């Protein structure tokens, strides 16, 4: 478990590692939180990315998780957030913030990343507001991004990590 713990309403939150021993808890979480299903390869990769995948604990119960990977498409080196979410009863407790700040600190330490980006379903107002707070902007809309859910379109939200570049 990460040494960093924070206090929030009703208890303490902390981030922890994803291991082959507890990966099923991550699967259960993703099943419930996200409308999209992730396959076995996704979870195999998650075990390889180290600090880029974390579980979020509230009073020692897993309530949220974040999974990222380094993405080298489009000729840039970016960090892609695959999933970041938290069980419904535990939202608005700064758990999402804790996870995103962790991701940002990784980006800072890495130093060679151009940007941080993710997809958000177009009707997910809460998510859009959340990411905007951290400096993300909608740079594109991907139509028919999702295969099995409605609306099928997604925004691409990106945060530029090299602000000084022209």
């Amino acid at each position, binding site marked *: 478990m990460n040494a960093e713990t924070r206090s929030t309403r009703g208890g303490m939150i902390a981030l922890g590692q994803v291991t082959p021993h507890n990966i099923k808890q991550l699967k*259960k979480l993703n099943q419930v939180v996200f409308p999209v299903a992730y396959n076995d390869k996704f979870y195999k990769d998650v075990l390889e990315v180290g600090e880029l995948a974390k579980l979020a604990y509230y009073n020692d*119960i897993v309530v949220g998780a974040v999974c990222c990977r380094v993405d080298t498409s489009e000729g840039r080196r970016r960090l892609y957030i695959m999933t970041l979410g938290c069980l419904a*009863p535990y939202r608005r407790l700064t758990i999402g913030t804790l996870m995103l700040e962790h991701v940002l600190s990784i980006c800072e330490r890495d130093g060679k990343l151009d940007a941080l980006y993710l997809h958000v379903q177009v009707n997910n107002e809460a998510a859009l507001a959340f990411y905007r707070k951290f400096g993300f902007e909608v740079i594109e809309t991907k139509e028919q991004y999702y295969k099995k859910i409605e609306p099928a379109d997604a925004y691409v939200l990106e945060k530029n990590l090299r602000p000084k570049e022209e």
Partner: protein
Amino acid sequence: MPSSNPLPPKEAALFKRILKCYEHKQYKNGLKFAKQILSNPKYAEHGETLAMKGLILNCLAKKDEAYDNVKRGLRNDLKSHVCWHVYGLLQRSDRKYDEAIKCYRNALKWDKENLQILRDLSLLQVQMRDLEGYKETRHQLLLLRPAQRVSWIGFAMALHLVNEFDMAITVLEEYRKTQQPRSFDYEHSEFLLYENQVMREAGLLEKALDHLHQNQDYILDVLVFQESKADILMRLGRWEEAKQVVESLIERNTENWEYLRLLQRCSAAESTESRLRLFDQLCQRFQRAQAPRRMALYLEYDTADLRQRFRDTLNAYLRAGLSRGPPLFASIKSLYSDAWKVAVIEELLVSYLDEVNAGRDPTCPSAPAESTESDDSLLPCTALWVNIILAQHWSAVGRSADAMRHVDAAIEHTPTMVELYVLKAKIYKRGGDPAKAAQWMEEAQSMDTADRFLNSKCTKYLLRCDRVEDACSMASKFTREGVGAMENLNEMQCLWFLSECARAFQRQRRFGDALKKCIEIDRHFSEMVEDQFDFHTYCTRKMTLRSYMHMLRFEDGIRGHRFFVDAAVMAMNIYLELHDHPVADQDGLHDDQQDNLSAAELKKLKSKQRKAARRAQQQEEQRRDTEQSRPEELDPATLERVERPLDEAARWLQPLQDRAASSVDTHLLAFELHWRRGKPLLMLQAAKRVHAIDPQHPRLHEHVVRLASRTFHVADAVATVLKQELHRLMGGHDVVDFDRRFLEDNRHSLPHLLEAMHVSVVHLKTTPPETAADALYAAKLMGQPLHAGIQMMDALHKGTFGVCTTQQMDTLRQQCRLAWPLATAFE
């Protein structure tokens, strides 16, 4: 060393070298020298040399040769203490302690003051609890070596063990006077505390108190000092002083329930009010102490006022503890033996749920309605905790469907919490569906595969639904590589696993396998008794005398431990079953198939079966004889074909009667055993013992009536005694009346009802079988224990209560399904 055949100087020197080689474990050299002596034709049969050769061979694991040589040597030189000593050593290494003691005694006849032999003898005597002998040997050792401190200590302890306290204290005092302790001399401190313990056990309380005070500077274990002081003062009736000491103990540790009990006694707090006042004071003084808060709940609350106070205390306790989650229920579980307390708990828990549904949070101290934050006033986990504790509550009172609803709601809320799946499995278990229980426990285990507790729980649940192989694979995730789980866990003396395996085999009627497990459990207990051997020398040397005494007493009663008792009960049940329904032979024709054989073939078959059974019995006896030295591989097929299962059952009964006499099962089984052997007086004894423990036990009723309705062919005197005692057991009524009253008194309990019916239909024949089913319809099944329901359907199936129509059975089965919705037994 007198021997009937003394050796000349050259050989004598060689002999001395043999002894040295043995001591230094240079076995090859020792054998070489022995050969040299024996190659001399004049001394080819020299007793002592042969004995030493045998001893060395024993160390090289050549047992048979060793015994040969030693026995030859002994025969050639019966008056040699060396030969006897060596023979004793051999017996000891094979754990034949009684034999070894005899050998040592013989050796001592020829050399009264041989220290080595005396020491060896003393160890064996204390191991076998020959305490008088131990005392004598220790006395001898003290006379021979008064300069060694171990002699004094050993003698004092031997006296203590035979309760000769005065003498023991004298010896200890004499020893103490010779000691000049350094500062922080821990050994001396332990010695003083031991001396004090002896004084207290002797009842010399004033002396013990003075002793404590005089030696206070040398006693380093302050906790034990205080506890001893409190004990002495209380026994002397000096309550005020005792109270002060107990209060200082509580300051050290507020969670020790024993201290709280002592405090109540010192304060002469008898009534519930005075006790509550005491607990309140403690709670005030120690804000974070759990024990006084919990203990307050366990008192007797008889008046309406007090019951209100209970409600308030419980309310505060539960609200404060809700956020602990599952452990909260564990802390109030023992309150469930009190029906009215259960009602209060239920009322409170349901009210918490209502609060949660109304958006208020029961775990928050009742703040004035902060309606500005109405959405946030409920903490995220509270709904979870309330659902969890309600699920646990409903499961405990037998309403498994309600329990399931709540645990499902909790899982819906937080599907990532592993404990929820464990709880779900438990609810299925209690509800009577072991297969689903195992399934859900597997789910829980898969969510955290590094957790050994989950793994063990899952293994147990798999065994409970008879998936023995799956259980072994589950367990092997944490056991040693390359070795099967069954083998490794046996080696590790994992008693819970062995016990559950035995139960699983018993359920599947694989009696041989079950017996094998029970015997393995028995062997482990024997090993535990064995293990104390090295501590006799070690503890005396290290002066950890109190722990040593504690260990000896623990070992004395070790077979009273739950795991042994369970194994013994299981084994006895199996042997009784094997007696009633012997296993068919290997070339196995069951009874119905035997009809097709001709008379000659049948005769041949039967004689073959008898031979096999006799062979099995012989092997069993042989196994027991060689048990001590060579634990043999157990063969399930042999085990379940013993010719005299009742003898085996009787062997298992013995330790139960010695160590588990307070358990009803012991005496119920004793009754069944004696019934099959036709021993009415012993049956009476067993029934009386059950009566002394639990006069309303359902099986007792059946036993008493069974005994009363059978005529035994016994002497007149015996018959009179039987009649008198039975009359007393039945409260002065005749049998029929007794049965009727029993039914009246226990109308609402299904187990009792079933026994009463069994009695009236089968033994007394006062109830015609057809009406049996009607009586069962009328019984209220809700809230009854599940096992009684299963017992009832079983009995109807077998026709114990007479013939039952399919329609009646189906109706009853339907009722069972309503009462126990999760149980698979009624499908």
